[in-house]
């Protein structure tokens, strides 16, 4: 309590109102793509540079095909906006994306932006109404480019991205850079939760004529509230079912018969309650529930609320002027505070939804804590594996081949460890799919490191097991898209690639053995075709590179290993890198001899 909005969102309070003013001005200046203004902060004399974007109330700039103008985004400049497990790429509104793409060329070239970067000034991208989505996408664009973190302020902005979009923002730690101001009844921040319809067009038309001809008051449409909020409410109910752990299997069937809006809030939301208080909420599930429930009908009649839902879209400047000076700001995170919720006028059912949203976050933290207990176990098992590998090296066979033979007690114990570890990582994989772990889990250093260690050490054993039982005959090669390779390895590899900003599939050193095994099989089947020859060369290149950067274990080079035997049997004309690899094998042999002597 007693904090200002600026404190809570990490931006000086003095910036907010001028930014809002500029955003409204820019929205109504369609001749310019954006406006720029430098704002001096009084107490430390630093400057903040605000870019605000123009808007459009044409239906074609809000909606499109397919329904909800759904467009997958994660390519090129938005490479982070994707799920690192099975969730696919983030979906955004394609019409907003198109408008952003129209602007970004000129924005990147703007001299004010260059100057701000040079002088290390804080950059803020701001947008009012349909200018909001452009501000959001522009902020993301520069966050991806790793320019000094820009901020984003929106006022009455429609929703832009889906659940994966928000998940990716939180995973990357960018969520806090986005702040969205929303009036209690404003229809625009809710409009994207409903499919485009005649009601949409009525609303947009109304604002268009209002913004175009400032002096004339157009007649407000009516009858839209029930449709738009009804659809929005079904989105909130669906999410509430998931938060509440609905176990009725009909939920999935019913969901498959209806099309809900994919869009969800992300970033920090500041709700303007209309009586001078501001409520700051970061939990995205809570934001969604508040968006719907605080705009529900109460004692006032429908027509009244409907009118308010239009009027409030134009009330940000006056509302913020009144609120920002005061310190009547309450953060909802860490449990709903009854007093504030009274300001939002939430029903008991809404309170249960908020409690469920909070509990969902708590559960994710608890799951993470539980996982930390597992971490130790993973370490213990990996240590056993490491010892196993060491011992196998002394026998000059290597742990891959030793495991494949399954002759010794050690091999069996390694197999039990392999299954033990698979259980733990499979459980994590399923939890990630269900969003049951914190969003930044896949970005945590210690998790990526542990996962990579696991993948490099244990996946060869899964491959050995696979080819020991000739499973390729049933399922095809170990590595084919969506094939038998366990998903846990695919995910863990993706975490590393994402972290190192490398392309998908570039960190496949743990698949070395699978390439070798499959090549052996394919050569027997097809002979030395062009394609096979290329694959042999690739294996040689990979070997040299991965031994070089130590991502592949050197025991592939042991004299008796499947690899060395196979490679030695290749006709010399198929081994362009023969000298280099013979040398590596020789060095390995020496190392082992010395090691055994000691």
């Amino acid at each position, binding site marked *: 309590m007693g904090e200002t909005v600026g404190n809570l969102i990490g931006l000086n309070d003095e910036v907010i109102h001028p930014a809002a003013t500029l955003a409204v001005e820019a929205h109504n200046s369609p001749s310019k793509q954006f406006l720029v203004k430098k704002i001096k902060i009084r107490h430390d004399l630093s400057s903040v540079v605000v870019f605000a974007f123009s808007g459009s109330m044409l239906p074609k700039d809000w909606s499109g095909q397919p329904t909800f103008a759904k467009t997958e985004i994660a390519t090129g400049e938005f490479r982070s906006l994707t799920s690192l497990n099975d969730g696919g790429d983030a979906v955004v509104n394609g019409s907003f994306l198109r408008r952003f793409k129209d602007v970004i060329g000129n924005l990147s070239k703007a001299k004010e932006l260059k100057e701000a970067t040079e002088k290390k000034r804080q950059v803020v991208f701001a947008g009012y109404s349909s200018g909001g989505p452009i501000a959001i996408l522009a902020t993301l664009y520069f966050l991806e480019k790793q320019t000094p973190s820009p901020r984003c302020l929106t006022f009455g902005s429609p929703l832009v991205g889906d659940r994966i979009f928000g998940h990716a923002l939180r995973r990357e730690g960018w969520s806090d850079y986005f702040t969205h101001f929303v009036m209690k009844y404003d229809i625009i921040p809710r409009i994207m939760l409903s499919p485009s319809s005649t009601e949409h067009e009525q609303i947009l038309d109304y604002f268009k004529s209002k913004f175009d001809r400032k002096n004339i008051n157009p007649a407000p449409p009516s009858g839209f509230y029930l449709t738009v909020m009804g659809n929005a409410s079904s989105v909130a109910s669906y999410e509430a079912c998931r938060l509440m752990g609905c176990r009725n299997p009909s939920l999935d069937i019913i969901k*498959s018969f209806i099309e809900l809006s994919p869009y969800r809030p992300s970033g920090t939301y500041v709700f303007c309650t209309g009586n001078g208080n501001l409520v700051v909420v970061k939990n995205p599930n809570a934001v969604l529930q508040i968006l719907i429930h605080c705009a529900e009908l109460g004692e006032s009649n429908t027509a009244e609320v409907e009118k308010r839902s239009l009027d409030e879209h134009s009330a940000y400047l006056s509302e913020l002027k009144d609120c920002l000076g005061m310190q009547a700001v309450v953060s909802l995170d860490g449990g709903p505070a009854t007093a504030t919720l009274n300001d939002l006028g939430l029903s008991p059912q809404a309170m249960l939804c908020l*409690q469920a949203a909070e509990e969902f976050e708590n559960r994710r933290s608890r799951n993470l804590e539980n996982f930390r207990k597992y971490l130790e176990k993973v370490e213990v098992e990996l240590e056993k594996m490491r010892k196993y590998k060491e011992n196998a090296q002394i026998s000059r066979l290597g742990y891959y081949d030793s495991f494949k033979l399954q002759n010794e007690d050690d091999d069996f114990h390694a197999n039990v460890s392999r299954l033990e570890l698979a259980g733990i990582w499979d*459980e994590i994989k399923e939890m990630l799919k269900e969003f049951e772990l914190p969003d930044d889990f896949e970005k945590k250093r210690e998790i990526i490191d542990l996962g990579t260690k696991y993948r490099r050490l244990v996946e060869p054993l899964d491959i050995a097991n696979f080819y020991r039982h000739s499973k390729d005959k049933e399922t095809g090669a170990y590595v084919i898209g969506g094939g038998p390779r366990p998903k846990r390895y695919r995910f863990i590899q993706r975490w590393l690639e994402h972290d190192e900003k490398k392309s998908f599939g570039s960190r496949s050193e743990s698949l070395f053995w699978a390439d070798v095994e499959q090549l052996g099989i394919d050569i027997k089947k097809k002979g030395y075709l062009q394609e096979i020859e290329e694959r042999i060369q690739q294996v040689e290149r990979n070997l040299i590179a991965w031994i070089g950067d130590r991502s592949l274990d050197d025991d592939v080079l042991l004299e008796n290993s499947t690899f060395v035997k196979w490679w030695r049997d290749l006709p010399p004309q198929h081994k362009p890198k023969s000298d280099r690899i013979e040398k590596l094998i020789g060095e390995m042999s020496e190392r082992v001899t010395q090691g055994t002597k000691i």
Partner: protein
Amino acid sequence: MSQAPLFSSAGELANLVVNSNLIDVAWANIPEIQIGQAAFPCSVEPMDYSPTPNRTIVVFASSPNGTQYPLPEGGHLVQSSLFQFLSPNECPSVSINRAALDLFTSLESQLHGLKTKLIEREGQLIITGHSLGGSVAALFTLCLLDSMDKKSKCRPICITFGSPLLGDFDLQHSQWNSFFLHVVSNKDPVPGLFLPSSRSPSTSSHSQTSVYKPFGTYLLCSEHGCACFDDPDLILKILTVASSEVSGELQVVDYGEMLRNLKNKAIWKGPQLAGERYGNSFSEGIVMELETIGIDTAKLNIDINGMEREARSLTKKTKASEAKKLNDIKKAMANLEWYKKKAEDEKKSYYDCFRNEDKKRHVDAKNFMEELTIYWEDMVAEAERKPQKEGKSFRTGWLFAGTTYRRMVEPLDIADFYQGGDGRDYINSKRSQHYKLLEQWYKEAAKPPTREDLDSKKKKVSILLTEDSCFWAHVEEAILSCQSLTNATSTTKQRESSWENLVMFGEYVMEQIENCAVSPEIFLNGSTFMKWWGEYKAYIHNFRNFYSSRLVEYMKRGSYNQYG
């Protein structure tokens, strides 16, 4: 530590349904069709009505007469062979409400054609009906579900409005349960018509009608709001209370009007309840949901704490925990495989190893065995509770793993049984039901082996598990037969039957050998099988010197040394 809060999502689910237009679409065409229905009790009106492509709607309309005054004794349940497929293996008979069944049967030929046509379609299929029409819609949907297979691209949902209870079967363990949505107004007497406490016209048959069971999800509505429940007991209680409170004449509820009202209510703040917030989120939610649909919780006599306990136990079962479980099972199997391998290294069959020795290794094996048995007993029981066809497709996914389990673990159960020396007739007296079912299902699913299969089997017979998981039980019985033959106290009759058993056993073993169906480990020195052979050989030598059989020749020649 205090437990994490739980929630009841009945209200939210209902809100989703009401706001989604799904039920408006289902209802939209019913009133119109119903008006033209005075003369016939029921008709079918399949239509390609689609605001979105790939959607088919089938409407079953019944006459208002049939709805208000169900046929005399319409509440009777009659056994129906037509719906036999609904019964899980567990309980074999199914009864259906007579009025609904009669209507359905009278339309059967027409419906058969419709079913064949619909199953070919792609996309959404909404099957709907009001009152008795809804009952027929549900019966039709059940038949449709039974005819569908994995290749079917049509996705059905059955939505009924104010339909009476349909039968005594329950679908709680079936995926099918989720395809049914029953919309019921608290003003509508029809859904509770056949319940004992209501003023059912067929008062004579209470005892018979009380076995009705709801299935699917119920969207229960009042003028204040709605809630979705799928717990059959709770639904029964609610229907009973609601139908006892319906006052005055039997009236027809206008579901269209009701839905319009509910849509309005959905974006209303709802009742502002006095009292402690954050008491218990689960009971707070349930009480609110029940009050919304016009039920006084005090009258209902429900155990909210019990419901919460059950919900809590269900939340523990997640995909994540199941992934872990599956790997645990694999781990236990790997341990048993290793146990088997260790025995082989010592030149023993793992059967004999387990039967005759008692070291730590064996204690471990026993633990893994128990873990696996619990898991597979559950899997088999789950398959058993589903309607026959669904159970079958459920189990095909894991039948292969289940068979490996049976072949690996059942011999150990047999070893345990005969170990003490006084076990007799394992197969009939002790064999667990889940082994019997696993074997039966395997036999139903297995294809007859081809020549090539046998050839490839010959090559790798050394690593195969003995196919008949009761093989060792037959061996043990054969030893007992040998003993009975040489036992001075045996009667002639006993001896005759023992000899007969041994002749049959010989043929059985020879057949297994020829089919490469036994593991070569049975021929290892000192195995129970070789022990039998020793006793048998001695008996023949002493008492039936001229007897021979293919197995006797095979064993005497030592051909088994070349086996595997």
